[in-house]
Structures are given as structure tokens and as C-alpha cells.
């Protein structure tokens, strides 16, 4: 008996796990020419829409219509690819920054923004949309994605879970536990790390000493892939492949997408405190939308008609969003007690009565001269 027989493990081949140190790129390789033109156009349209969505949401904060908005401007290729790589029956596990991918999954934008508008915590039905609530405590939703994917696999169903997380989130214990469970259970889950270089103000160099975040996969027996997160076709290609692999029983993949958050962390953040304009400008030049547009124009895959069409569609979405977000949502104070439990406890019923009385008094008070 050798020592490694210890564990009765069929240990994965290390070399197969080790990600390249160079990110997957498509736009700058000749291979890009082979891409399906329809897919590229779809990507392009979604990127245009996504950019416009980010702009509109940012404007809505300034207009006091959103409490806060963590923008994904500059990260649209990741957002779009995450949404497009999934099939209908699959699940998405987003963070606060991933409302764009939620919208692109087909969730109504107003419902998607409910959390950030402040009328409720989640505005859509996760079961109906197969989108988990926007998660704020970092990395805590990753075990949920693993559990769901595992349950689906055990049930014999064809469901893949895609979980999004930031570079900072990879430092949390829950990231580790989720990746490890996924590896052991060979769960059909894809972890997409949007490495935008910062966790609020903290640069990646203070976050980890790992060669790349994709290398973290090795310690879980999970496949790791590094990809240029501002290269939309590369993103879609890598994620589509990872989803297909998970679907086929090939287990989880950890995808690190190198991207950049062009805006501040949220509207409340002052990014000049921790990064230079030069850095931001350099990244603007790698803008995922501009890059794909350039590529398509150069390769003849795009004409001005299509560009205008895409922009018009985006404009319609924005106008609709603007209009609907300017309607102050009806909030129902008594609803505070309705869903704490399936049945309100006697204590909650008492508290509901109390609030009801208070609200009635207010109404009376207001109606009296």
C-alpha cells in the first residue's frame, strides 16, 4: 500500500486543473473570425442595452429614484455572457452588482431594482425567474448555488447554477466552503469571478497572493479558467463551455474574468481616493462594447443600421425604465409582518395590530382639521 492509497481518492490530474496564466481572448486572435455572426450580433445588442441600462440606473440614483446603484459599467461583457450562457431551466445567483445579468435573464428591470430602490428586499420571484435574490453579504450565496445544483443533480434534472462573485468575495470563507463542496459533490455549478481589480478601495494585490484567482480552483479539484472579461465573445465562449461541461456531468468550473469597474464602487463611493484617472482611462480603452463594435465593424459584421437599431432598442428600454421608476412605488407597512413566517406568530399579530392602530390614528390625525 502506498501512502497516497490512504484516501481511496481517485485524485484528479493536477495538470488538467492548472489554469493558464494567460487569459482566454478571442477578439485579438484570428479565431474570432470563425465566430457565428448571429451570436456576435446578439452579444453586441445586449452590450449596447447593458451599457444604456447602467447609464440609466446611474441617472436614477442622481434623481433620487434609487437609494444606491453599484454599477457594472465596464463589466457588461461579463454580465451579458453570464446571462446568455444559461438555458431557461438554469439558475443564476447574482450579487448587488449583477442586476444587469438579472435583467438580461428576463427579469423585469423595475422588479430587479426593487432592492436598490428601497421598497423591498427582493422584487422578483426567484422560483419563477430562476434567479436567486441579489446577495449582499459577500460570497454567502455561493453555497446556495452549490446546494441547488447538487439537489438538481440528485433529482436527475438538467439544471446548472451560475454563481457570480467579485475578486474581494473570493477571500471569504464561504467561497472556500462552496468551492470545496462543489468539488466533492461534482455539482453542476459555474463560479464566475468578476475580477474588477478592486474590492471597494482594496486592490487585488492586498486581497491575495495567488498567481491568478483561477488558480484557486486547484485546491478544490475544480477546473479553473482565466479569461479576458472585457472580451465578450471570449466570455461567452468560456462560460458556455463551462455550463455545457457542468450539464454533462463534468463538474464545476471556476472562471476568473479580468475586467474593470469603470465607475466608483457605488454612487456613494469616491474612487479618486484609491485609484488614478490614468488607470481608469487605460481601462476605458479596453471597453468591452467599443472593442466588440470595432471588431464587428472591421470584420464587416455590423452596419450602421444595426447599430442604430440596437441603440434604439436600448433607448426604449431606458425610457420605459425611467418612466416606471418615476412612479413612486406603493409600500405597505403592514406587509412588514406578512412573510416573516408562513404563519405570523401571535407576537407578530399583536405587533401588526399595534402598527395598524398607529396608522389609523395617523390617518385620523391627518384627516382632522
Amino acid at each position, binding site marked *: 500500500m502506498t501512502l497516497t492509497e490512504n484516501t481511496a481518492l481517485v485524485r484528479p490530474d493536477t495538470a488538467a486543473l492548472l489554469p493558464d496564466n494567460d487569459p482566454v481572448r478571442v477578439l485579438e486572435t484570428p479565431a474570432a473570425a470563425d465566430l457565428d455572426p448571429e451570436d456576435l450580433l446578439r452579444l453586441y445588442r445586449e452590450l449596447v442595452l447593458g451599457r444604456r441600462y447602467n447609464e440609466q440606473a446611474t441617472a436614477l440614483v442622481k434623481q433620487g429614484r434609487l437609494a444606491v446603484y453599484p454599477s457594472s459599467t465596464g463589466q457588461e461583457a461579463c454580465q451579458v455572457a453570464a446571462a446568455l450562457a444559461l438555458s431557461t431551466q438554469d439558475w443564476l445567483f447574482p450579487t448587488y452588482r449583477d442586476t444587469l445579468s438579472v435583467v438580461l435573464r428576463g427579469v423585469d428591470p423595475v422588479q430587479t431594482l426593487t432592492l436598490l430602490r428601497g421598497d423591498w428586499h427582493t422584487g422578483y420571484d426567484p422560483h419563477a425567474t430562476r434567479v436567486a435574490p441579489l446577495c449582499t453579504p459577500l460570497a454567502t450565496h455561493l*453555497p446556495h448555488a452549490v446546494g441547488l445544483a447538487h*439537489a438538481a443533480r440528485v433529482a436527475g434534472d438538467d439544471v446548472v447554477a451560475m454563481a457570480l462573485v467579485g475578486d474581494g468575495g473570493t477571500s471569504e470563507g464561504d467561497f472556500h466552503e462552496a468551492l470545496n463542496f462543489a468539488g466533492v459533490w461534482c455539482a453542476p455549478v459555474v463560479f464566475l469571478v468578476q475580477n474588477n481589480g478592486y474590492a471597494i478601495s482594496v486592490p487585488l494585490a492586498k486581497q491575495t497572493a495567488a498567481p491568478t484567482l483561477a488558480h484557486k480552483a486547484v485546491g478544490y479539484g475544480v477546473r479553473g479558467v482565466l479569461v479576458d472579461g472585457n472580451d465578450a465573445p471570449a466570455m461567452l465562449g468560456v462560460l458556455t463551455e463551462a455550463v455545457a461541461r457542468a450539464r454533462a456531468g463534468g463538474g464545476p468550473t471556476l472562471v476568473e474574468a479580468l475586467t474593470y469597474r469603470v465607475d466608483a464602487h457605488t454612487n456613494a463611493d469616491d474612487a479618486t481616493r484609491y485609484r488614478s484617472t490614468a488607470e481608469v482611462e487605460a481601462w476605458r480603452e479596453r471597453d468591452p462594447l467599443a472593442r466588440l463594435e470595432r471588431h464587428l465593424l472591421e470584420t464587416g459584421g455590423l452596419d450602421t443600421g444595426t447599430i442604430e437599431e440596437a441603440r434604439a432598442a436600448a433607448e426604449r428600454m431606458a425610457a420605459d425604465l425611467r418612466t416606471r421608476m418615476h412612479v413612486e412605488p406603493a409600500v405597505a407597512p403592514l406587509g412588514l409582518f406578512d412573510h416573516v413566517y408562513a404563519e405570523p406568530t401571535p407576537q407578530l399579530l399583536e405587533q401588526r395590530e399595534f402598527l395598524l392602530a398607529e396608522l389609523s390614528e395617523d390617518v385620523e390625525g391627518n384627516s382632522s382639521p
Partner: protein
Amino acid sequence: MTSVQTSPRVRPAPEDVEESMARALNAALRDSMAADRSVHVLGEDVGALGGVFRVTDGLTAEFGEDRCTDTPLAEAGILGSAIGMCLYGARPVVEMQFDAFAHPAFEQLVGHAAKMRNRTRGAVSLPLTVRVPYGGGIGGVEHHSDSSEAYYTHTPGLHVVTPATVDDAYGLLRQAIASDDPVVFLEPKRLYWGKQPFRRTLDVPPIGRAVVRRPGRDAVLITYGPSLEVCLETAEAAKPLGLDVAVLDLRSLVPLDDETICELVRRTGRAVVVHEATGFGGVGAEIAARITERCFHQLEAPVLRVTGFDIPYPPPKLESHHLPSVDRVLDALARLQWDGRPGGVSLAGA
């Protein structure tokens, strides 16, 4: 670990078999799993070993590894993936190996399990049971004897349930598993091994209902889980001293059975709350506060508390000094201002 015997005080029906609480819990898991394919058990060592307390004994053999699963050693991962399983329609029962080892999963419990239904306006329910062996009295070293119920009861969105009898262990666990809300199911470790008559029936009062384990006119001892035995013994010991003491077993800390509590307090005018956990900010504080709010004019004396001290749980050789004892509960009864009472009772020296 030493076993603490429990005398079969409750419903000693001769036709019933005797069973330990650990076995009753095992039966509840088995019957729930057999009745509902969506019930999954997961945790550390729940498979081949059957759990360190053998509560999951035989479940993997009977239902397979996918239904009763040894997980990696990571409590947040266990609870978090159970939450994800719920999203896919499963009804997971998670085992935390000891009370203190649930703390690494605190964020998942408080940040997610407790909030999911509310944040989704009822669209997502989490029919999740988190089994937590808790309490002391078994000679466990550091981190093996804690009572964390107050953390859970202060967290809206969680049900918190704890059986004190073998029948309740079975009935309440089945109810917990059937519940569409997350239930923290606290199992009093020191009662695992003692045998009691066992009816294996769902017909126990629902979660949210307290049960009078002993009627009495003069005062009521309000307690739960591991301290029920102490209170029953105290009531017995108070009898020769001329006191007719009721004992109320809460069974469910959230929801709390205000109705029954207040009924007994109004009837007796005197109450003592008894639990093992640290007194400061413990469940006893909440109960005492709400009794006073609701029954102030019926109270002959302040509601007193007999609890663990405000110290980290002591090492085995000192735990007897920390835990509520019959003497301490008697002492609290004696301090319930009996002077003005018709007939007069002196418990001095009790």
C-alpha cells in the same frame, strides 16, 4: 461522556415501549424520510457513523448517501448548501455536531435562513431544520456544552424548538421537518440517553404550544429542554414544604406561548424561569419581561430567574456549580415574597 438518566415522568402509559430520546429522534428522521422523498439529512459524520450521538444511525444504509450525506467539515457550507437545496424543493435536516460548532454558520443562519421568506415576500420558503445538540451536564470539555438559544430566539424568521420528553422529541422533530419555515431544533444532549415511554406519534401539541407538566396553585416554574427535570424535581421537593408548584415546559421558544404562560402566572401570581444558558440577555429575560408587562397586577413577587452564570461554560469538574440545581430553584421559590401570603409559608433553609 456520562449519561444522565431521565425518569419517565411523562405519560407512563403501560402499553408504550420505552425508548431513549436519541432513538426517538432517529425514528422521527426515519419516518420523515420515508414519508417524504424531499427530506434530506446532511452534516458531519451523519453517514456511516450515524452521528456522534447516533441520532442518524442507519439512515444512509436505508435511504442512500444522497438522502443522508456526510458533508465536508464546514458548517457554513453545510447550512448554505442546505439553503440552496431548499431553493430546489428539498426539505433538508442539517445536523450541527455541537452547539458551539453552529457558530461558524451564524451568518448563513441569521443573514439568509432567517430572512429568505421575508425578503422574497413569501416566494421562497425554507423548509429547513437545523438540529443542534445543546446544553451541558455531560462532562464535555470546552465548546461542547453551550446553550445558544438566545442568539436564535432574538433572530426574527427562525422558529426555535426544544423537546424535553421522548414523545416530544419525536413529535416536535417531525413537525419541525414538516414546517415550511426554518426551525432551529435544540436537542438537550443530557437527555439523549435516558429512556421514557415512547408513543411514536405525531399527536403532540403543535410548535408554539407550551405544556403544563405538573399543575400547581402557588407558583409556576417556567422552563424548557434540559431543565425540565430539575424543575419537576424541585416541585416535588417543594411539596413537603407546603408549596404546590406548577411546571410549564415551553417546548417552543419561538413562537412563545404567551397565552399559557400568562394563564399560569395569573393563576399562581408567582413565577420562576429556569434555564442553563447564561442569564444576562437569556431567554429568561424575555419571558420575565413579558410576564411583567402582561400580568403586572397579578404578580405577588417579581419573576425570578435561575440560570447559568454570566461566564463561559465551565470545565467538567465545575459545571455542577454553574447549572441550575434543585436547591437553586427552591431557593428562588423561597425568595418569592411569601410573607403576606394567607397561611404563610416559610421556606427558610430550604
